[in-house]
C-alpha cells in the first residue's frame, strides 16, 4: 500500500461529517512523538485500512492518559489529564477504543471507569488476534518471518497487570514463526525497566540497567527477532540490543510491524 492511499481520519472531521467510527485508535504520547513508536502507529493504521475497519484518531484533542504522572505519585496531574480526556471522549460518544500502548490501554480500561469514563478497551494485539481469528485479516504464507527464530517479551501492563499472555502469542503463531520463550516469560516476565515513570528519570544506583538484563536474556535464546507489544519496551530493548552491539543481527519489532512486513503492506 502506498502511503498516499492511507486513510487516517480525525474524530473532529468525522463528527463534522456526521459520521461515527467503529473504533477510536488511541495513539498515545509515544506513538505520536517517538520516532520509533511512530512506525508502529503507522503499521497499525495500515492494517486497519487493509481490513477496512472504520477508525479515527483524536489528533490534537488527545492528551496524555496521565499514566506516568499517576505512577510517579502525582495524582493532581493525572486527574487533570484524565478528566480532560474523558470530556473529549464523551463529546464524541466514544464506546470502543484500541491502543497500541499497554499503559494507555491499562489506564483507559481499568482506571477511567472510577472517574466516570466507561469504554470497551482493547490492546492492539487483542484486536489483531480477533481479526486473524475471524479471517478478516489474512496472514500470507511464506512471509518474511516463516520459520525464523523469534522471542516474545511480555510487557508488564499487558501481562501481569491485565493477564493477557495469549493474544500476542497466537498472532506470532499465525505468522508461522519459531517462538522460543525466554526463561522468564508470561507471569514471570521481567520488566524492561521503563514502567512506573522510570522512562522519565535516571536510574537509581545499581549494578546494571534493567533493560540490559532483559535484553541479555532475550539474546541468549538465539532469536533473530525480539517481538514486543509496547512502545516503551521497544525503546528499552532496542537500546539493550545496541548496548550488546547486536543491532546488525537482532531486530526488535512490534507485532503490528511484523504483520505489515509479512503481508508486504
Amino acid at each position, binding site marked *: 500500500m*502506498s*502511503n*498516499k492511499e*492511507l486513510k*487516517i481520519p*480525525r474524530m473532529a472531521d468525522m463528527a463534522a461529517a456526521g459520521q461515527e467510527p467503529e473504533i477510536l485508535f488511541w*495513539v498515545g*504520547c509515544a506513538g*505520536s512523538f517517538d520516532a520509533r513508536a511512530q512506525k508502529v*502507529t*503507522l503499521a497499525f*493504521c495500515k492494517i486497519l485500512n487493509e481490513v477496512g475497519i472504520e477508525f479515527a484518531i*483524536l*489528533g*490534537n484533542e*488527545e*492528551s*496524555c492518559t*496521565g499514566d*506516568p*504522572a*499517576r*505512577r*510517579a*505519585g*502525582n*495524582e*493532581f*496531574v493525572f*486527574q*487533570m*489529564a484524565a*478528566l480532560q480526556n474523558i470530556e473529549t471522549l464523551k463529546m464524541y460518544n466514544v464506546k470502543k477504543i484500541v491502543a497500541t500502548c499497554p499503559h494507555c490501554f491499562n489506564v483507559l480500561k481499568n*482506571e477511567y471507569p*472510577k*472517574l466516570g469514563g466507561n469504554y470497551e478497551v482493547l490492546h492492539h494485539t487483542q484486536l489483531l488476534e480477533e481479526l486473524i481469528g475471524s479471517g478478516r485479516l489474512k496472514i500470507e504464507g511464506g512471509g518474511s518471518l516463516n520459520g525464523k527464530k523469534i522471542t516474545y517479551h511480555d510487557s*508488564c501492563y499487558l501481562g*501481569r*497487570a491485565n*493477564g493477557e499472555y495469549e493474544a500476542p502469542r497466537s498472532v506470532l503463531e499465525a505468522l508461522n514463526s519459531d517462538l522460543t520463550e525466554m526463561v522468564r516469560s508470561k507471569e*514471570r516476565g*521481567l*520488566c524492561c*525497566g*521503563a*514502567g*512506573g*515513570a*522510570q522512562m*522519565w528519570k*535516571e*536510574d*537509581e*544506583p*545499581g*549494578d*546494571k540497567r*534493567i533493560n*540490559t*538484563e532483559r535484553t541479555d536474556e532475550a539474546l541468549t535464546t538465539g532469536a533473530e527477532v525480539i517481538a514486543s507489544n509496547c512502545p516503551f519496551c521497544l525503546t528499552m530493548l532496542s537500546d539493550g540490543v545496541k548496548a550488546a552491539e547486536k543491532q546488525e543481527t537482532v531486530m526488535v519489532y512490534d507485532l503490528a510491524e511484523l504483520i505489515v512486513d509479512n503481508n508486504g503492506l
Partner: protein
Amino acid sequence: MLQQLFFAIVAIAAFSYAFRQFMTIRRNILLGKEEEISGDEGQRWKNVMLIAFGQKKMFKRWIPATFHLFIYVAFLFTQIELIEILIDGFFGTHRFFADKIGILYPIMLNTIEILSVLALIGTFVFLARRNLLKIPRFHKSEMTWWPKLDANLILIGELVLLAGIFSMNGADAVLQKLDPEHFHDTGFVLFSGTFGPLLLGGLSEGVLIIIERFGWWLHILTVFAFLNYLPSSKHLHIMLAFPNTWYARLQPAGEMNNMPEIMDEVKSMMGLLPEGDAPAMEEELPEFGANDVFSLSWKNIMDAYTCTECGRCTSECPANITGKKLSPRKVMMDVRDRAEEIGNNLDSGHFKWIQEDLRNEAHALTKANYDDGKTLFDYISNEELHACTTCNACVEACPVMINPLDIILQLRRYEILTQSAGPADLVPMFTSIENGGSAWQIPDDRDKWAVDAMSKD
C-alpha cells in the same frame, strides 16, 4: 491428679498469654486506616481455598513447594491429635479417642506418622537449604541475624515436636503389650509399631512410661511455646495467610486506587461538578498518600504481619535483580517493624510519645495523639521508592497475596503530593502533561506523524 493440675495451669497460662499477644497484633493492624473490603465472596473463597489452603502459588517453584507441603499437611493433621492431647491433659484420660472411633484411630495415627516422617525430611532439607546452600534470596541485606535465626528456630522446633511424637508413640506401642488395661490397643501403626519394639522393647515398664510421658509433654509444651512464639515470628503466616488471602484485592493488578478527594477537587476546578457540589475547603492542608502505618490501610499492615520473609518477591524484582536498593520484602518487614515499634510505645503509655502541643491537656496516650518524631520514611528511603517500575512482579510472586507495590505507591504519593518532593527529573514530565497534554515537551501537532505519512509516497 498432680499432672492434670499442672497441665491445666500451663495450658491456661499458654492460651491466655497467646490470646493477649494476638489481640496486640490485631490492635497493631488496626493502627492503619479504615478501608471497607468486601464483595465477590465467591472469588474470595476461591482464593482462600486455592492459594491459602491449596498453596497454589507456592507451586511456581515445585521443589520447595513439595517439602513445604509435607510440613504443612503434617501440621494440619497433627491438630486432630492435639485435640486428643488437650482432652487427655485436662481429664487425665489416655488416648481418649482410641476406643471410640474404631478403625479411624489407627488410620489417623498412621496418616500422622507418615506425614511426620515426610515433614522430618522436609525439615532437614529446609535446614540444609537455609544454612548450607547459597540461595541468594535467603542472604539479602534485610536478612539480618534475627530473620535468619527466626527461620532456623522454627525448623528446630519442628524437629523437637517430631521427636516428641515418635517417642510418645514408640513407647506406647510397647506398653500396649505390657499393660493393655491402661494403654489402649491402637492397632498397628507403621513407624512406631515397627521401631518402638525394635528400639525400646525389653525396657522395664517404668522406664517406658517415663519415655511415653516425656514424649507427650515434650510435644504439648513445644506446641504451647510455638503458639506464644508465633506473634513475634514470620511464622504468623500460618494463621494470617487465610484472612490475608480473603481480603486480597480483586481488581486487575494494573489498577491503581483512585483518590476521590483529588478527583473532586480537580472536577470542581474544571467546572465539572454541579453547582453546590464543590468539595468543602478544609482548614488544614490535607495530607495525601501515606507516610506511616497510620495513613496506610489496615490491609497493608495485615500484609506486613502475614509476610513469611521468603523473598520470592525480591528475587523477581527487576530493580533488586539489577542491584538497586529496593527490595519488596524489606518494604514489608519495615512496615511490620514500624507497626511493632508504635504498638510497643503505645503499650508503654508513656506521655513522652504524646504530640508535644497536646501533652498538657491529654489524659492518656492514644493512637490519635501519638507522635514519636518518626515515620515510615525513617525505615524506607526515597532511593528505594524511586527504583520501583510498578511491574507487579512482587505481587504476582507472593504466595500469600501480599501487595508491596500498593505501599510503595502510597509512599510515593505522599512524597509528591504532601511533601512536594520526589525526583527532580520528573518535573518536566509533570509540567508538560499539565500544560501541553503530552508526556514530553514537543511543539509539534500530535498527529504530525499522520499528516507527514499521508503526504509521502
